[in-house]
């Protein structure tokens, strides 16, 4: 097993907490096994792409009542979408790679900050960022 596969498996084990508790409890180990086997057979990018799709279609809807997951995830998605659009526009109009890099770094930074702020807000009892 190469290092990339090992790191991906470890990351997937962490990502599992986003899935509904029943699914995790009943099939968590086998999901990780299937993920690891698939990495070696189908390739890292293809497998992660399907995991991303499943996060949106299975994990998020399954966590509708869990604001600790839903609020940060939605905030992160919104920030990623808005910043992704900025990056795309920047890439389309930039003439030099050096013009794209600052925009890209700023976008990634904003997305990461947005994610952690949302995480903090969703755990704070005084926050107004609540969906339930």
């Amino acid at each position, binding site marked *: 097993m190469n290092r990339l596969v090992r790191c991906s498996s470890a990351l997937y084990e962490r990502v599992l907490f986003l*899935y509904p508790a*029943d*699914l995790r409890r*009943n*099939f968590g*180990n*086998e*999901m*990780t*096994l*299937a*993920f690891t*086997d*698939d990495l070696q*057979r*189908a390739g890292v990018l*293809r*497998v992660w792409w*399907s*995991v991303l*799709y*499943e996060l949106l*279609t*299975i*994990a998020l809807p399954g966590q509708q009542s869990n604001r600790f997951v839903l609020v940060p995830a939605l905030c992160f998605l919104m920030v990623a979408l808005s910043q992704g659009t900025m990056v795309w526009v920047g890439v389309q109009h930039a003439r030099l790679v050096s013009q794209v890099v600052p925009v890209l770094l700023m976008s990634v930074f904003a997305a990461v900050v947005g994610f952690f702020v949302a995480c903090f807000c969703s755990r704070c009892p005084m926050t107004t960022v609540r969906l339930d």
Partner: protein
Amino acid sequence: MEPDLPLAPAAFFILFALGTGDKHGYAIMQEARELSDNTVQIGPATLYTTIQRLLDADRIREVPRPEDGDSRRRYYRLTAAGKALLKSELARMEAMVKKSKALRLRLGESS
């Protein structure tokens, strides 16, 4: 007609894969990929969510691991209700293929 028809692609491929014998989850994933000529990719969460649904609906059941099986995995088998559902879905598909062939003939004649 069965109330669950038409089946979702993941449920169909799981039942189809189990139609050829008992399998564990990852073997089902692989078989689905082969059956669909690599056009259907069932991820782990989709696979096990659907397996849970099929178990709940008594369409498949867990069976003891074969002697040469992988001790880390659980194995599944079609139940009688699962076989009936798969047969109904295959019959529905065959009927659709017949209709589409007839339509193609008509379209070919008219052009």
